[in-house]
């Protein structure tokens, strides 16, 4: 029962901070005077008029990093239960966890050798 109360507090904090930040943002938006003309509302591009599509293309390596992150973040999520209950672990479960880590490391070495993390 106690735990549910604590999460209720977090929910209340979430709502209050959400309300506060929305008030702040829209206060600045609605209260202050606005003088709008085209040049001012254009995207910033070092003095030039913006040309081309800003979201056209980006480096594929950002995508690769994101995929690698998915794998390793999942790994961390898997390791969490093991780490907390380590006091009730045996040698067998330890070696299974080592095998899991070794498989991941082999994959990681493969990624590096393939050049997925070469940025220059």
């Amino acid at each position, binding site marked *: 029962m106690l*735990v549910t*109360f*604590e*999460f*209720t*507090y*977090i*929910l*209340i*904090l*979430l709502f*209050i*901070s*959400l309300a*506060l*930040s*929305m008030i*702040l*943002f829209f*206060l*600045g*938006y609605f209260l*202050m005077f*606005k003088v*709008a003309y085209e040049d*001012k*509302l*254009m*995207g*910033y*591009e*070092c003095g030039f008029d*913006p040309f081309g599509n*800003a*979201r056209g293309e980006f*480096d594929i390596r*950002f995508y690769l*990093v*994101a995929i*690698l*992150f998915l794998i*390793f*973040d999942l790994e*961390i999520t898997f*390791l*969490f239960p*093991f*780490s*907390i209950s*380590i*006091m009730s672990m045996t*040698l067998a479960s*330890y070696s299974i966890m080592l095998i899991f*880590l070794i498989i991941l*490391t082999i994959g*990681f070495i493969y990624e*590096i050798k393939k050049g997925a*993390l070469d*940025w*220059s």
Partner: protein
Amino acid sequence: MKNILQIVLEGGLKSLIVIIGLLIGVAFATLLERKVMAAMQKRRGPNVVGIVGLLQPLADGLKLVLKETIIPIVADKIIYAIAPILTFTISIVLWSVMAVGVQSVFASINSGVLFILAISSIGVYGIILAGWASNSKYAFLGGLRSAAQMVSYEVALGLIILSIITYAGTINIQEIMENQNKIWFIVPLFPGFLLAFISALAETNRPPFDLPEAEAELVSGYNVEYSSTGFALFFLGEYANIILMSVLLAVFFLGGIVHNKILGAMKGVSMLCSFIWVRATLPRYRYDQLMYLGWKSLLPFALLIYVGVISMVLMIK
């Protein structure tokens, strides 16, 4: 048994205390940064507004609020508004489980570390959305860089945090602080502390890893199109995260805030000061160097430390 009104009232009051305390903390953290940097460069720093410049952050905040909000025509208006609101909200909610003492915590949930890891991951969305919604090349590149950087260093930081909870045997923040009664975790886990410090710098986009804000190439990164309160929200969120990271490092490695609150606060402030020290000392990394450091140095080392810690704990048992 409490009734709902009581819970809401209590929660609301406690929330207000957390938010006001956090905002004051952020305001003076910015002043601290400018003062410490000035002292390191033999300058005076802000000293005009108030006594020795103590009111400078308030004046800065007021100035930002009085500015005009400009929303670019090409921007996605709704996402453009959501991004700073999300960033600021997340950075406040993160503080709900931060214990400032063994008994004094806003919400004493049993899995505080997990909560912090989970919620801080959402922070990346604010940056990605800001970069995307601005529809400007600089903002887009800055957002991408920032997201890739935070994501890369989150892995190393996560592995170090795993080592800590393995060593402490709990994911409750208060219990982690209590477990350091005999010896601070910085002593047995010193390499982990170094890695965590570097990762914390990169996680919060601090120099020398402030690539998203590299003025010379990207002007200001993902928040280049934001002005007025939108920018202020990003700024507040960023500094709240920096303070959170320094307090987190103090809690995980320096024994946290156990009996003496002043001493505990000094641990957090000393971490904050070393963040500033690093900023005043080191030049900025290049982006490929940053990625190499994150993936090819920190990650293997963090894995090694983790394997070492689980082996050690099992051997002691």
